[in-house]
């Protein structure tokens, strides 16, 4: 009887300690998120670029075209499975880079992901589709384990960023998440943007209109990308 009681007590203690460690770790990750990396090095960082339809991709391509590619290497592109145009545009950009530096092969990979919510889909049915999207996102993220994530608003970036956050907690990989809100958002954040902002998952949150920055004070105003 006493032994059983002891056993229960020690299991309860272990669970408590475990939960305490998890909580401390989560608090630490939240504390570190949003703080610049301390290491000053030029070591290239593997980068995941999440592409969205139409306008989103055009904005991201503008960002990629001025960034120092050697620092963000290798690069992984993810777009929705229903969207062939975006990956095509990214391929064109990567091909033009390959011509420029005359390297044998620019390290870039292109992948597709199930969408959590199609344009116009109701918020209720999107719960189910979001779960499928999360499972697929988990598989892709385990493969990529990026050090840097760049995203600018398509719904597909939310599960990827949440998983990246969990990887930070568990210690699989420390990813730095940059979110750039679309230029189309002038007064209010998009649903994806709002989630990543409120959950404090994005390390840096950029907006393209000053009135949006005044409303969401933890964001940074960077001017128009288009």
């Amino acid at each position, binding site marked *: 009887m006493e032994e059983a009681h002891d056993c229960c007590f020690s299991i309860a203690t272990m669970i408590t300690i475990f939960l305490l460690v998890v909580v401390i770790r989560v608090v630490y990750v939240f504390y570190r998120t949003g703080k610049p*990396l301390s290491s000053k090095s030029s070591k290239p*960082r593997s980068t995941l670029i999440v592409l969205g339809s139409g*306008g989103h991709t*055009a904005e991201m391509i503008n960002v990629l075209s*001025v960034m120092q590619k050697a620092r963000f290497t290798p690069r992984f592109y993810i777009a929705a499975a229903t969207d062939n145009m975006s990956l095509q545009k990214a391929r064109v950009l990567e091909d033009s880079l390959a011509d420029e530096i005359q390297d044998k092969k620019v390290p870039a990979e292109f992948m597709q992901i199930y969408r959590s919510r199609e344009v116009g889909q109701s918020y209720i049915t999107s719960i189910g589709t979001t779960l499928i999207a999360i499972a697929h996102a988990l598989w892709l993220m385990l493969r990529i384990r990026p050090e*840097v994530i760049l995203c600018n608003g398509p719904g597909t970036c939310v599960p990827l960023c949440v998983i990246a956050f969990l990887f930070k907690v568990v210690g699989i990989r420390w990813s730095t998440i940059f979110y750039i809100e679309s*230029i189309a958002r002038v007064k209010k954040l998009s649903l994806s943007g709002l989630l990543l902002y409120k959950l404090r998952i994005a390390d840096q949150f950029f907006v393209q209109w000053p009135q949006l920055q005044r409303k969401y004070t933890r964001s940074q105003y960077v*001017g*128009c990308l288009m």
Partner: protein
Amino acid sequence: MGWQCGLKLQMGEIEQKRKTVFVTVGTTLFDALVKAVDTEQVKHELQRRGYTHLLIQIGRGSYIPDKCEGEGGSLVVDYFTFSSSIAEHLRSASLVISHAGSGSIFETLRLGKPLIVVVNEDLMDNHQSELAEELAERKHLYCAHPQALLETIADMNLESLLPYPAGDAKPVINLINRFLGFPDD
């Protein structure tokens, strides 16, 4: 040689006189816009303002506008559903009337074409009007609802529109570099 020269001159004259209004609904459909453009009042107002041709990209819409060859000196009206050369149509237009998608808006502004953006009120999540309204406030374009298109065309003063300055991604890249600890260039 002489007649060829004359023909070229004549062609040039026609080209000079040709002033096209290009209407685009984007990758989906926007019947309310096509309907609004395809009214006698709007066509008459466009002609009064010196436009000679009206070309409408109708997308997947079910409303088909009336084609017109320009008999009796009226506005020449033509339409198509989709085209891979929207950029060319934008380039050769003297006025663009567009849906509120950001891709179409910035492509037109970059070409320096006068632009009227028509907001689709039927979209569930209508954040698109935000961008058009902001750019209208900054005098880069005109923004209208389908019902107000006629008034907008009648009242617009294209000289008062300001050119849109090209966007710049360097500030955001600099912040990203600094955050990751990459040395400054």
